[in-house]
């Protein structure tokens, strides 16, 4: 059994660790709160654009745009992968990266068939180590990213699709379900096929006959890239909220573990102390009986 002093030091250091994890948990909770507000602020923008695009494509049958059409031959697929810059977030990054890696290995025979756009340091290092083709990367995003920070990478990615570098673009991120659960999700960003399907279902509310200045094609031309970019930004905000959720629960379980550990250590400390006292009494008694 370890000595009394040893156990005491260990209790002390575990208590300190617990304080740190507890503080990190609370910081993450505050950040999660802000991230959720950010998502709330953003949603009206995306919904509005979607509404306008939907009403344009409903209003005139013959409107088409390369971004709305599935390409016949898919030569290269783009993947946007959103990870965090730092660890200590439980399985947040590991789960996502494993999923992406598996999916890519299933779908593609050679690295020429896909390209990666990686957000976050952990993801970048992961794919770099495996020599996978990273087309763009961005690290060191703020905890509450502004649209301007991501605009460049979103714009370039959408442009790469327009220039036929990519024939389809997927985004992988952790979707926020609740503060304690996230789900690895794959969404198709481009081409924007989902948009048309949704239209057919959701045509319940009467569509307005808009006047389009100068004409519907020009508007789609401008609006669709914005919409695709806003989808990317939306996923990023979602992923950020998940990150804080994951970090919060990881830190909470760390705090709980520290509590258990302190309990166990205190128990063995008391046992050791009692054993020492008993031994001392024994020594005194036997010493006294030897003298008399």
């Amino acid at each position, binding site marked *: 059994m370890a000595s009394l002093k040893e156990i005491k030091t260990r209790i002390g250091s575990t208590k300190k660790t617990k304080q740190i994890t507890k503080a990190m948990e609370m910081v993450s909770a505050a950040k999660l709160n802000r991230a959720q507000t950010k998502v709330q602020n953003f949603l*009206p923008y995306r919904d*509005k654009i979607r509404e*306008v695009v939907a009403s344009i494509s409903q209003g005139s049958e013959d409107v088409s745009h390369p971004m709305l059409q599935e390409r016949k031959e898919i030569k290269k697929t783009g993947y946007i992968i959103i990870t965090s810059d730092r660890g200590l977030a439980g399985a947040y990054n590991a789960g996502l990266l494993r999923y992406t890696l598996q999916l890519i290995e299933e779908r593609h025979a050679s690295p020429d068939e896909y390209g990666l756009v990686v957000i976050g340091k952990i993801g970048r290092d992961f794919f770099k180590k495996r020599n996978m083709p990273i087309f763009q990367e961005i690290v060191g995003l703020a905890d509450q990213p502004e*649209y301007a920070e991501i605009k460049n990478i979103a714009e370039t990615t959408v442009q790469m699709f327009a220039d036929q570098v990519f024939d389809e673009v997927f985004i992988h991120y952790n979707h926020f379900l609740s503060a304690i659960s996230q789900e690895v999700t794959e969404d198709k960003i481009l081409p924007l096929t989902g948009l048309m399907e949704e239209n057919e279902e959701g045509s319940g509310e009467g569509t307005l006959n*808009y006047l389009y200045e100068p004409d519907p094609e020009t508007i789609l031309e401008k609006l669709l890239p914005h919409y695709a970019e806003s989808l990317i*930004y939306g996923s990023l905000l979602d992923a950020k909220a998940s990150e804080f959720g994951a970090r919060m629960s990881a830190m909470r379980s760390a705090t709980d573990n520290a509590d258990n550990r302190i309990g166990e250590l205190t128990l063995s400390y008391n046992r050791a102390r009692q054993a020492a006292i008993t031994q001392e009494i024994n020594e005194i008694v036997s010493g006294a009986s030897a003298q008399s």
Partner: protein
Amino acid sequence: MKTMQTNVVTPDGSVFDGQVNMVSVKTINGELGILPNHLPLVTPLAIGAIRLKKDKDVRLIALSGGFIEVRQDEVNILAESAELPSDIDITRARAAKERAERRLEEAKRDNIDFRRAELALKRALNRLDVAQN
């Protein structure tokens, strides 16, 4: 006077939300004024100022391109970025203006950098304009 609900939304949140008598914006084809009961309309906007008139009050918003959607009694402006005069960082806009001017002198016409710098200059000038009015 009749009013209409007007919203200015950006990806970073709503910038304006309220009743106004008149909205005037700069579209890619020129200035456009909208009064209540306007026909439903969708059109892209250029870099410029939005003017929101309520009684005798005129509120300016600096806009860096976007869209306007007009419905019966509702106007929605979707912008990549939009700022009220009080939110504009004048020093930053000034720095952006100088940077853009420098780039314009260096870059050759017709190249992407030139067009980019031109847009940046427009945005900076627009912000300064709105902030100083």
